[in-house]
């Protein structure tokens, strides 16, 4: 086993009778930031989900990855009937068992200080998104798989998130995220254009 956090070799992703992607080869090492880029419908989300092993029936090829994965998808797994603090504390991924102070710090980091005990249902879409991303500020996951993390965020939010990515990579973690917009992540970022893997 290498030190790579994720290694995909000749992965092909299908959807029903259609082959979305083929021969995807990618090696994610600690310290990497990978952006999966490509137009709508190319299969960014499908590939990310296959990395997360949420999709496996229609995925062929070799895939090995570390167990310590944090995945944030389109839907945030937040319950409107619970407060942001409870949502994070009892998160179904159970990746970490954060203390209340850690949670409050994480919520403050995404600019939600003062909302800890509000009902999540009352928050705006952008705020909910921030609650979901607050998980990135908790001690959890070496490999992050994030689906469109920058959507529904304002400029300041994007900047905070980019900083967090960089810090995570420098601390020996890695991030794989989908996005069709360019980012300011500098030379740490590698972009994987999925166009080259388009299936038949």
């Amino acid at each position, binding site marked *: 086993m290498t030190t790579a956090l994720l290694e995909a070799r000749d992965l092909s992703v*299908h*959807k*029903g*009778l259609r082959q979305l992607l083929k021969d995807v080869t990618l090696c994610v090492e600690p310290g990497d930031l990978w952006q999966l880029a490509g137009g709508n419908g190319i299969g960014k989300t499908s590939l990310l989900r296959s990395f997360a092993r949420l999709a496996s*029936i*229609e995925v062929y090829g070799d895939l090995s990855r570390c167990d310590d994965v944090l995945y944030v998808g389109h839907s945030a797994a937040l319950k409107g009937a619970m407060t942001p603090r409870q949502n994070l504390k009892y998160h179904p991924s159970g990746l970490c068992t954060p203390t209340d102070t850690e949670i409050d710090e994480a919520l403050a980091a995404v600019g939600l200080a003062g909302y800890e005990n509000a009902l999540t249902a009352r928050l705006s879409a952008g705020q909910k998104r921030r609650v979901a991303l607050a998980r990135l500020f908790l001690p959890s996951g070496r490999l992050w798989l994030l689906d469109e993390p920058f959507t529904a965020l304002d400029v300041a939010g994007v900047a905070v998130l980019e900083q967090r990515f960089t810090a995570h990579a420098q601390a020996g973690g890695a991030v794989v995220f989908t996005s069709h917009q360019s980012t300011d992540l500098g030379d740490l970022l590698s972009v994987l254009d999925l166009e080259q893997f388009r299936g038949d």
Partner: protein
Amino acid sequence: MWRIVHQFGSPPWVYRFCDRVIPWLLPITVVALLTGSIWGLLFAPTDYKQGDSYRIIYIHVPAAVVALAGYYVMALAGLVSLVWRVKLADTAMRAAAPIGAAYTAIALITGAIWGKPTWGAWWVWDARITSMLILFFLYVGVIALFEAYENKTVAARACAILSLVGTVNIPIIYKSVDWWYSLHQPASIKFTGSSAIDASMLYPLLGMIITFYALFALLMMLNLKQSLTEEYAQSAWLNKRLTA
């Protein structure tokens, strides 16, 4: 060993196999079906208790027996597809379900028709009939689940799981229905199970059971061939075979 498994998993090989066997099996099965029916209808002696209505046995019992076996065939294909991810097993599972449903339907209809002269009612909650009705629902469930999914690869996986759950449950269902029946109605006339059945009645019955198995195999191959034609319409091997 691996080569054999590999062969069974290879669509062109299976297609060729079906193509070769069907022309033989089809006439044999049809002739056997007609012979068995005529034997049972016209040559077997009359049952002294039930009279001639018992002759329905030659179609009811084989259908019921093979319908149950068919569910296990389907579940086995489901298991193979789950464990080894053989795509062909998905196809086989899909091929088995409608046949099983048809067999259970035959068993149910003939059972109802048999019930009228025997008990004076079209529907009697006899243990075998009740079990058969539940088996029918299990088959219909698998078919409906398969149809409900748009993505057929995913649908096959779902059906494999369902048919395995059904397999674990079928013996329990059968036993519990027997138990329920024996408590509510002391057995009066049983459709089958009398060990003293005369050889002149038994042989046509055995013949029909074997014929129904053969018919199941034939239908399975036809359905397999149909599904393969559908799935591999674009493939080079099928095109070559058909245009040669």
